[in-house]
């Protein structure tokens, strides 16, 4: 039994050691438990929450855009999408697509896309098969729903421009968000979200976008929704009212027919823009529904540049439409008065260089008003030479040339007003007197945008009020400051512009507006885009028709109406259109006439309402 006693003692000893080991191991467990459940608890609570909770962003409806009378220019249309949920299909995915293909056409690439997406996503996540279904297609899918398990219709909103072609350059368009545009707004990272790319859509993207709502949902490990925890609808995008009158906008664009050019029609008192046209245009809707490469290539390579908003970003020599500025500079500096007469013999010499009037046989003796009416070049060469470039530039800048007008759509260019200092800085060459003379007829370095020219005319018409152009309707506009300019001088220039249209000698006499509408004052311009050689002048000037399109002259016209109580200013350019009087003035006349008629109707309606 002694041996057994040893065994028993050993057992006791070893059992004690075993108990010690177990106690030690237990201590490890408890301290680990303490570490995980107390020290690290906050971290794991957060991780459990982020496992459990998933945020789904709800895109708010984008704000709609209306014209000045409430006509919708950008709306959100119901977009019917066909989706396939792979876990709900009865047979194979291909079978499901085959039966869907009997209702809507599906291409092999659609099959490929869907199969790829289905593989990538979880079985309960819908995959979009086709978008922008017509109501009929949608209805027939709904009707066949029992035979199409796993296929359902989803309604979304898609941007639609009822006047997509007419307003493409003003309203602009929306498109998919690209990587660079991601700012941290989670909306921008939603698949299929659209952001304003150009025009009002881009400029006012933030207010139009609104702010996203969200759904806080509990999800299981597969990401399937278990229940909704919280919902916030977000704030819908703000409505934007434009100053545009879509009737005038549409009419104005139609006037250009196949021509390339731009037109601006604005209110001279408050800067409201009623029409802003850049021709040719394009349908803004194609950018939203997805533009094919061919369509894009066609638009991008068109020499008439439909994608460029020429009204604000086309920089052109103003030509004779610049003569009002030169006249004002001359009157103010005192080098001429309204009665100063200058002789035009069709050309003049400066050193060895000969300057030509547009009329080779010359105008004879004429004063400032007559010179404006017939647009005599010799008169303005002479006047410009006397005034000097810096005074002309100063006057141009006072009227807002050479700087951006701060219109409320992106892409505006500033044009160029040259000075002696400018030339030295840029070309390291002294200013030449010949260049001053050419500037006198709106050629050489000076460039302006159609918007700038419309602004110049509006400021002449309104008596020097320094208005700002805008496309957004404003309830209240600050009373603009006045440009420092003598009303008397303005009236002289205005008389000249009146005679352009209402004197039988005037260059735009044939585009005059009848008196019952109040008449129109204006100024034509024709600018060369090529240099006419001495040889050509000696033999015979080539007619415009003989030249290639891109070598033909630009036709310009600026004007305002009615004459005595100006309401609207207009600027028109027809690229390579030929003569300002023959091409640009009739367009301006038509649009202005329509604008005046509509305005009279509006006034009459208002009066009727007041009477009632």
């Amino acid at each position, binding site marked *: 039994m002694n041996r057994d006693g040893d*065994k028993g003692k050993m057992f006791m000893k070893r059992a004690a*050691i*075993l108990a010690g080991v177990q106690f030690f191991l237990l201590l490890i467990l408890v301290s*680990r438990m303490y570490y995980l459940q107390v020290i690290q608890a906050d971290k794991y609570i957060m991780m459990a929450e982020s496992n459990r909770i998933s945020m789904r962003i709800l895109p708010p409806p984008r704000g709609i855009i209306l014209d000045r009378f409430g006509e919708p220019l950008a709306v959100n249309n119901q977009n019917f999408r066909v989706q396939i949920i792979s876990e709900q299909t009865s047979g194979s995915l291909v079978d499901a697509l085959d039966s869907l293909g009997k209702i809507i056409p599906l291409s092999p690439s659609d099959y490929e896309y869907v199969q790829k997406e289905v593989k990538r996503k979880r079985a309960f996540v819908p995959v979009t098969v086709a978008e922008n279904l017509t109501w009929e297609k949608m209805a027939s899918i709904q009707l066949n729903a029992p035979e199409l398990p796993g296929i359902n219709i989803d309604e979304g909103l898609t941007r639609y421009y009822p006047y997509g072609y007419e307003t493409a350059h003003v309203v602009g368009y929306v498109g998919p968000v690209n990587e660079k545009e991601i700012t941290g707004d989670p909306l921008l990272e939603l698949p299929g979200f659209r952001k304003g790319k150009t025009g009002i859509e881009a400029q006012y993207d933030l207010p139009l976008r609104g702010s996203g709502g969200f759904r806080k949902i509990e999800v299981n490990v597969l990401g399937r929704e278990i229940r909704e925890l919280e919902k916030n609808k977000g704030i819908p995008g703000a409505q934007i009212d434009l100053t545009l009158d879509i009737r005038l906008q549409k009419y104005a664009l139609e006037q250009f027919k196949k021509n390339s050019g731009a037109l601006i029609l604005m209110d001279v008192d408050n800067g409201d823009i009623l029409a802003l046209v850049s021709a040719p245009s394009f349908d803004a809707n194609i950018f939203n529904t997805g533009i094919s490469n061919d369509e894009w290539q066609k638009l991008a390579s068109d020499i008439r540049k439909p994608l460029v908003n020429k009204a604000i970003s086309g920089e052109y020599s103003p030509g004779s439409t610049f003569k009002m500025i030169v006249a004002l500079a001359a009157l103010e500096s005192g080098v001429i008065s309204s009665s100063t007469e200058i002789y035009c013999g069709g050309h003049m010499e400066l050193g060895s260089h000969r300057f030509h009037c547009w009329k080779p046989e010359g105008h004879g003796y004429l004063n400032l008003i007559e010179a404006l009416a017939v647009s005599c070049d010799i008169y303005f060469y002479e006047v410009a030479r006397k005034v000097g470039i810096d005074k002309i530039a100063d006057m141009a800048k006072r009227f807002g040339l050479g700087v951006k007008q701060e219109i409320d759509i992106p892409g505006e260019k500033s044009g160029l007003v040259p000075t002696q200092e400018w030339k030295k800085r840029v070309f390291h060459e002294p200013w030449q007197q010949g260049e001053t003379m050419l500037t006198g007829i709106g050629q050489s370095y000076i460039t302006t945008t159609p918007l700038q020219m419309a602004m110049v005319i509006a400021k002449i018409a309104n008596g020097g009020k320094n208005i700002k152009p805008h496309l957004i309707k404003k309830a209240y506009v600050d009373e603009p400051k006045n440009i420092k300019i003598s009303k008397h001088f303005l009236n002289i220039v205005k008389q000249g512009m009146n005679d352009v249209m209402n004197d039988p000698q005037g260059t735009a006499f044939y585009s005059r507006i009848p008196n019952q509408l109040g008449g129109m004052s204006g100024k034509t311009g024709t600018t060369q885009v090529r240099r006419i050689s001495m040889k050509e002048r000696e033999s015979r000037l080539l007619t415009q028709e003989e030249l290639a399109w891109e070598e033909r002259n630009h036709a310009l016209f600026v004007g305002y109406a009615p004459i005595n109580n100006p309401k609207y200013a207009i600027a028109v350019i027809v690229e390579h259109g030929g003569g300002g009087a023959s091409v640009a003035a009739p367009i301006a006349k038509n649009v202005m006439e329509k604008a005046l008629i509509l305005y009279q109707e509006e006034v009459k309606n208002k009066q009727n309402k007041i009477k009632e």
Partner: protein
Amino acid sequence: MSVFSVTNPLRLRKSELSFKDRFKNISWLYIFIVTLIASIGIITLYSVANGSMDPWASKQLIRFAFGLALIVFIAMTDLRIWIRYSYIFYFFTLLLLIYVELFGHDAMGAQRWINLGFIQIQPSELMKIALVLALARFFHGTSLQENETFKTLLIPIILVALPVLLVLKQPDLGTAVMLTISASVVFFLVGVQIWKFGIVALLALISMPIAWNFFLHDYQKQRVLTFLDPQKDPLGAGYHIIQSHITLGSGSIFGKGFLQGTQSSLNFLPEKHTDFIFTVFAEEFGMIGGLLLLALYIALIIFGFYIALRCTSFFGKLLALGLTANLFFYVFINVAMVMGIVPVVGVPLPLISYGGTAMMTHMISFGLIQCVFVNKDIQIGRSGANPDN
């Protein structure tokens, strides 16, 4: 009064204890603690099924009820029957293991089951008891001096090696580890010198690279690698460990409340009704709940120690403490595993994890411990018979 009337070769005398004595001798406190733990298990399985008795809690409840009867039944048997039949039980279980190896039912890529139609038997589970029984039987008859010689240890080493190798081949790393640990505990208790354990540990360490390259399955290697760095592949192999930590940690001190555990109800937690069930409980009842559950296990273990020390027969001592140590290491490895202290080896939590055979094994084990307690004063001769035989 013995239920078994036994004849040769180890004749038992008529039991000295009456049926009534035996019934009275059972520690009902012990059985109450077992019931408490099993109740926690059933409640947790109810929660795991998102507040439903199906599919787990109801079955577990029936098994436990059956197991409870089994504890009482085994507790009231004569301990000498167990020493007599221990080798037979061992070899029978060994045969079942071999059978499983040849015709076993494939589950989760491992052959572990015998399908009897109405019940599935997992012989490797039974082996955990059979091995302790056989070793206790063997060392009951040896002296301390003999235990210190290598010659004596040869047979018990073979007794351990045969089932361990068979289980490893299934492959079931968890059970192999458990068998090795419980055998080591018995070897330790009978006085095998500590330096011998050191040599075995050293040999194991040396053979590790060999095992890694030739014996471990890819998924087993993956588990070890994942244990070492769960963040390496957070959505793949490390996912279990990370989610297990989140489940535990987010339970914090007081837990999220019954049925309020998000990790398990939303299925972020894998194997939530089996190996990882402790985290579900700790998520809903926090560290307080976890500690309480551990305390209940500790109570059983302390009881086991008491029984072993109190018991007269060496067989009874070895059996009680061997099985108790077995329980301890089950709990320790399972909890350590879900806490990321040891690799995920697939050891279920006793009485809590869903599983029929594991439940039965533990109930038999508790029954045997109680049997030792009931028969604590009975002396058993060296050959396994009555001392006066």
